[in-house]
């Protein structure tokens, strides 16, 4: 059940209505049933897999809290291994098998490693990490084990954030299921506005960019370097708006019911450095890797070479988390290398100061290098990614014919110029709004803001309606999957 579908609209209205009609003590049960229905809309049988991992981690959480020393650690490892085993079988087994087969081929042997034919359960990577976060926090003594299996199940499979995050921490989410969230107009209006903004990001910005990107990347060898540059830039917009859009919708849906989920994106493309970028991009995943991989490896409290190795390992694993393909591994390692280089060059770059010009240049350099990394993220194969980058490097930026080709790629009919113009204008408007949010500026005139003080919900209603109208007019209305669903 995709967020941008009529089925989800109907589902959401029913669930939210029931939520506020039921006594608060019963609400979590209804949400659990609703989350099961939501999950089973994808592949019903996989609910068994999900409940198996839930049972294991629930039981291990209680065992960990009741033990000490080596036994405590053993329970932790059992939980981690069992949870990761499910992830490995469904997501990485074939990747390993194909790699082994390729190696066997290189060594002159016959490819004999078997493959499995399994569909990836939706949201597996996300709820796996959320479960791991729980058992690790219990092990560290920072979270009491949840004794109510139903509440724990809801923590793992709470439907707004089940399939693509944010990856929540138990300290933030678990207690909220036991609280009385009565109807609050401020929460409702802000939540609905967030949902509208999320849909705008997905259906107007991401899906528009996707039409160009998919058309070009499908037959990338037929296009010039300039068209590939534009497609890659648009993919940078697409992946951000798509994923940020999903997170915003999830946060908005939860906020309507009074739940507070963590912020997942904080205007990452305005970052002045790579370290800043990774504090703003997919915050829930970045902090997860920081807390459960990077810091346990030693973080930056070790020698310089070990520190750099920790960065490289953390980001390579992060890349692998995104997908079972060498392109993601290389993407992750590339980002790790960028961080290492930034750390190495920090003594030099810090002397440049913080003038407007220097800040602008830093932002441009950061953005360009991040966008280069996205080519690996998008390309189907490693060889394609390198070939695309080579072609981009040889782009003819002044060739009129290449600009014509790049413009025509916006649409299959002679509406290319119109579609291209509107797409670019909408993207610029989108980043203008992001820029204003980043700098605490308001888009609204004084008279409207004073109206807001008297009627706090007024601005939210106005914004929500304007966003929905913009979606009607400019959105790509057919339901399309979110990029991060595949992870």
């Amino acid at each position, binding site marked *: 059940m995709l967020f941008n579908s*009529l089925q989800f609209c109907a589902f959401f209205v029913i669930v939210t209505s029931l939520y506020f009609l039921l006594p608060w003590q019963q609400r979590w049960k209804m949400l659990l049933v609703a989350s099961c229905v939501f999950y089973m809309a994808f592949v019903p049988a996989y609910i068994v897999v999900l409940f198996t991992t839930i049972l294991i981690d629930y039981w291990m959480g209680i065992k960990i809290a009741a033990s000490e020393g080596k036994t405590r650690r053993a329970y932790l490892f059992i939980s981690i291994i069992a949870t990761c085993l499910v992830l490995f079988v469904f997501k990485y087994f074939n990747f390993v098998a194909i790699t082994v087969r390729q190696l066997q081929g290189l060594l002159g042997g016959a490819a004999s490693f078997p493959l499995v034919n399994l569909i990836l359960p939706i949201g597996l990577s996300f709820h796996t990490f959320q479960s791991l976060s729980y058992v690790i926090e219990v092990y560290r003594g920072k979270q009491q084990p949840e004794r109510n299996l139903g509440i724990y199940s809801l923590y793992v499979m709470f439907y707004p954030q089940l399939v693509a995050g944010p990856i929540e921490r138990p300290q933030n989410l678990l207690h909220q299921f036991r609280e009385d969230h009565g*109807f609050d*107009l401020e929460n*409702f*209006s802000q939540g*609905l506005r967030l949902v509208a903004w999320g849909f705008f990001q997905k259906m107007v910005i991401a899906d528009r960019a996707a039409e160009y990107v998919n058309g070009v990347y499908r037959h990338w060898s037929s296009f010039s370097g300039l068209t590939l540059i534009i497609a890659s830039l648009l993919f940078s917009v697409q992946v951000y708006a798509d994923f940020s859009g999903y997170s915003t919708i999830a946060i908005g849906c939860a906020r309507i019911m009074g739940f507070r989920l963590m912020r997942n994106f904080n205007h990452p493309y305005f970052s002045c450095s790579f370290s800043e970028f990774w504090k703003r991009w997919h915050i829930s995943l970045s902090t997860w890797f920081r807390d459960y991989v990077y810091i346990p490896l030693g973080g930056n409290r070790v020698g310089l070479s070990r520190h750099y190795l920790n960065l490289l390992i953390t980001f390579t694993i992060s890349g692998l988390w995104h997908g079972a393909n060498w392109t993601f591994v290389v993407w992750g390692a590339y980002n790790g290398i960028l961080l290492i280089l930034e750390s190495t060059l920090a003594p030099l770059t810090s002397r440049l100061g913080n003038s407007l010009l220097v800040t602008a240049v830093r932002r441009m350099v950061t953005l360009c290098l991040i966008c280069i990394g996205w080519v690996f993220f998008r390309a189907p194969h490693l060889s394609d990614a390198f070939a695309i980058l080579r072609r981009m490097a040889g782009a003819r930026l002044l060739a009129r014919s290449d600009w014509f080709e790049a413009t025509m790629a916006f649409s*299959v*009919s*002679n*509406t290319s*110029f*119109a*579609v291209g*113009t*509107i797409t670019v204008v909408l993207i610029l408007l989108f980043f203008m709004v992001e820029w204003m949010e980043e700098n605490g500026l308001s888009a609204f005139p004084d008279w409207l803001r004073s109206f807001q003080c008297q*009627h706090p*919900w007024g601005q939210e*209603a106005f914004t*929500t*309606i304007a966003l*929905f*109208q913009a979606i*009607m*007019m*400019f*959105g790509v*209305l*057919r339901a399309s999957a979110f990029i991060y669903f595949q992870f």
Partner: protein
Amino acid sequence: MPQSADNNQQAHTRRYFAIILLGPIVLLAFWVVFKIGLEDRFSRHLDAGYPGYCEQPAEVLFIGSSHTRQSYDIAAVEAATGRSAYAMAYGSLDQNLMNLLLEDLLRDPARRPKILVLEAYATKLAQRSQLEDPRFFFDLPPGLKLRFIKNYLQLNPELSARLDLFGLIVNRGTEQLWTYPLNHRILARLSYRGAYRAHVSNGVSESEFRSFQPELAGPEPDPIQFAALNHTIQLCKRYGVRLMLAESPMPKPATSEPDIHRMKDVYRAVSLANHLPYLDGDEGFPTDDPAYFADATHLSTAGRTLYTANLIKSFGPLLVADRGPSSLVQTHPPHTSGPSAGGSSERAFKEEKSNSSAPESAIGRGVEERL
């Protein structure tokens, strides 16, 4: 005090929900009325469309899909025939949708062409009528839009079709509206009377050419499409418009499906039964040369030049001569079985096929001899 605060909160809540629920409905209603009632005014100066033709009607009207748009050098046709010409083309336009346009156009003497070259796209004849180019809807005046909606709902009763229609009315074409001041100037420079002017499309590589896959047709013509074709023929007879059927050349690898040839035979039979000129663009055209094709379904610039020349050679005498509606010329010898429109097309085709022993290059010559 707490009670008045509660009452205040409830009043705010009611107002909020009233605005949130009614606001989008009111805005949407305005938008739908605007789109249906006024959007065609923003397409008047755009190319290749119904409004563009209405602004400057021509004596010779080519009507069809993107095949038509990319197949004809209108300037060359005008130079060769001495008649004004126009190409009205929308992506994947089929017989049903062409008939809808022609019902409106032919009724008006000011916009009625003298000669109509109707696209005879074999694959489309067997496919269900679908609207694939939203510009078609964008360009229609309000009355035709409503007729199209009625036609669409009759042919597509399922719920998903209604949602598609909603998307078409509310969502498609918005870009053209917002960029109209600049867009129409650019498009006007790129086209001439509906066909491409400045745009150059090159041929494909040999490997790409060999990889072309045939479009799937079907063993029988779609009843709606076939009825629309016959209706168009009757319309032309009623209004005295000289009608010709023409299919643009297709690359050989893309026409290997037997069903495609079966549909071409249907067109031949219909043209025979109604004494209409029919041009199969494949005949006398190098359909196995990649240089003449831009992709699996469209000609390159070189292909357009060659095919236009072939068309002028085949239909030239018909296009140039000033003849009345009673002197429609047969392209095939008359048959003793006397086929009627539609019904015995298949038998007529079989007889015609047994007579077609003349070499391909004799098509034009055959027409000239009968003149």
